[in-house]
């Protein structure tokens, strides 16, 4: 049983991806409200790690617990429910539904989490207003990139998740906008009481986090090993 103070705990997790790629994570945990950066170069396995935690990829072995609930060894639908309730996701390209309004995009997360339908609109609107989005009924395709980022963050935290997983959230932004985006994500997580595990190859991000996890420190890849001539 995962201690309840942990937002996330991984133990002896392995993941085989094809013949030449494998991740092995001996141990990784994150306390509630803790913010950590996973740092490493492109293709080092940062995103794969986040997707394993989210249950969108299934680990070959080992245990993954989120908010005290095991993600491994459970049915896909059970993993879906845990993800909807406890995990917020922020993607590099936002992945908003362009024909849906900002309010609807945020409401989707509430719907997925099984929150009462009559509360969706009010909760989404309130959070969006708080994040500076007033035009909540406008299709997100008509919003600026910065506004879309806010909508994506709102969608990630609207269910008050235990942990937010952010996968290269600033990769497509310039330095100034990247800084503003990270301010937004961290502030939002702080206010929502959510832990944050952010994957980024940008070294400038390291100063923003109290804990920086070098992916190479506990992740081994067959590809990396093969390249160095020593198969794991």
């Amino acid at each position, binding site marked *: 049983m995962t201690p309840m103070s942990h937002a996330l705990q991984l133990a002896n997790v392995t993941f085989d991806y094809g013949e030449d790629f494998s991740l092995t994570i001996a141990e990784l945990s994150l306390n509630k409200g803790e913010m950590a950066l996973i740092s490493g170069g492109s293709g080092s396995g940062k995103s794969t790690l986040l997707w394993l935690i989210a249950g*969108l990829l299934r680990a070959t072995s080992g245990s993954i617990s989120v908010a005290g609930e095991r993600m491994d060894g459970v049915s896909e*639908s059970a993993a*879906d429910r845990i993800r909807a309730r406890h995990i917020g996701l922020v*993607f590099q390209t936002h*992945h908003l539904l362009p024909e849906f309004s900002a309010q609807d995009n945020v409401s*989707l997360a*509430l719907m*997925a989490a099984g929150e009462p*339908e009559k509360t969706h609109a009010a909760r989404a609107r309130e959070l969006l207003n708080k994040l500076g989005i007033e035009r909540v009924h406008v299709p997100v395709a008509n919003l600026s990139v910065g506004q879309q980022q806010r909508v994506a963050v709102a969608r990630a935290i609207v269910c008050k998740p235990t942990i937010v997983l952010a996968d290269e959230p600033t990769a497509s932004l310039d330095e100034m906008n990247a800084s503003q985006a990270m301010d937004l994500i961290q502030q939002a997580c702080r206010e929502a009481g959510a832990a944050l595990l952010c994957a980024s190859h940008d070294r400038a991000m390291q100063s923003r986090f109290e804990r920086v996890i070098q992916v190479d420190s506990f992740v081994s890849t067959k590809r990396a090993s093969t390249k160095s001539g020593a198969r794991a």
Partner: protein
Amino acid sequence: MNDISIVVKSLRSRRLSTIITAASVAVATALLLTMLSLRTASFEAFQRGTGTTHLLVSADSSPLTAVLNGVFYANAPSNPIAWKKFQDIKNAFPYDWAVPTQQGDSFRGFPVAAVGPEFFTRFEPVRGEPWKLVAGQFPSTLFEVCLGSTVAADTGLGIGQKIVLTHGTGASRDSHEHDEFPFVIVGILQPSGSAHDRVVFTDLESSWILHAQERRERAGIEGVATVADLTDDDRKITGILLRLPTRPGRDASAAIQQQFDALRRDTGIVVAQPAQQIDRLRSIIGNVDELFIALGVAVLLSSGISILLSMHNSMSERRKQIALLRALGVARMRITGMILTEATLIGFAGAIGGCALSLIGNAVASGALKARIGLVVDPTLDPRSTVIIVAGAIVLSALAGVLPAITAYRTSVADNLRPEA
């Protein structure tokens, strides 16, 4: 936000494709509904026209032709029956009534039927619904006519006005007007919902006088013909409507078939049981409208395929949407259900649109049938056919959504949301 609102938003985002696909379902549904309801209604209308006649005697070439000409006024019967033959037939059996009819003239394209007085007093154009007048009276003396409701409505003529009948249909080379004998309109009949509504009715003697006058002119006899001038050769009819006695409240009689067989022994006449001939007509035309129904089913199937193609094509651009819903925690089966709901909604919208189209089509078709052949066809939809066809369209649409739903079920979140390398 709920599953249905996602489905509706998804359909609205592909508005044109959704409308075209639903329209194809609507056209197929309407085609099937219209074919089925008009088939049923038109045969009911045909049956109405035969009224209370048990047997029809004519000198036409076949029983079916006799019914089409004698009851539905398709053409004027080409061969006459002598008056003496009518009297022999009438006296050979205690018929409930026997009505002689004669056709051949027309008025502004509408057929003219000269009939015996029992046509108005004993014959009922629709069982249980005897003739009624909107105005005036039935012809009671020479050179009076009574207009069927369609004739009155189309010509705008009223009581007291005079008309001149045309020999023949008016379209043939030997057509000419009987202008020596104007007829007075004395009555306008209530609509009967049968072919009789397109007919101008007069008495037999007036009709015979018209043709006696022609005979006299050909012979160079001067003066205007009267009843006294009629010869046996003038007194010809083209049909006899017969009804056998029945028990009160009953329409059938065991003697009908016996009398039918007895009359058929006379090779100079054709005897028809109108109800049987309508059934025969139904079986002949039935093959044609089965073809139309098969066509409707084929269109419905093709609209199902167009739903499948439309949704299948949209799946490539919707993979990200599906993957995102999955990433947010929406279960595969729930997304599969949304896709099936989407296909079903297209089918439902198409089927409802088809019902509306069919109602419009039926109204147009029934109007045309009434104007062309005087048949009053109920334009409303048959509830049973409607339920079956609407349900069929919806089920077919849902089935068309199965393949896209499977595609949605199999959509990989990782492949569709991870940034491209």
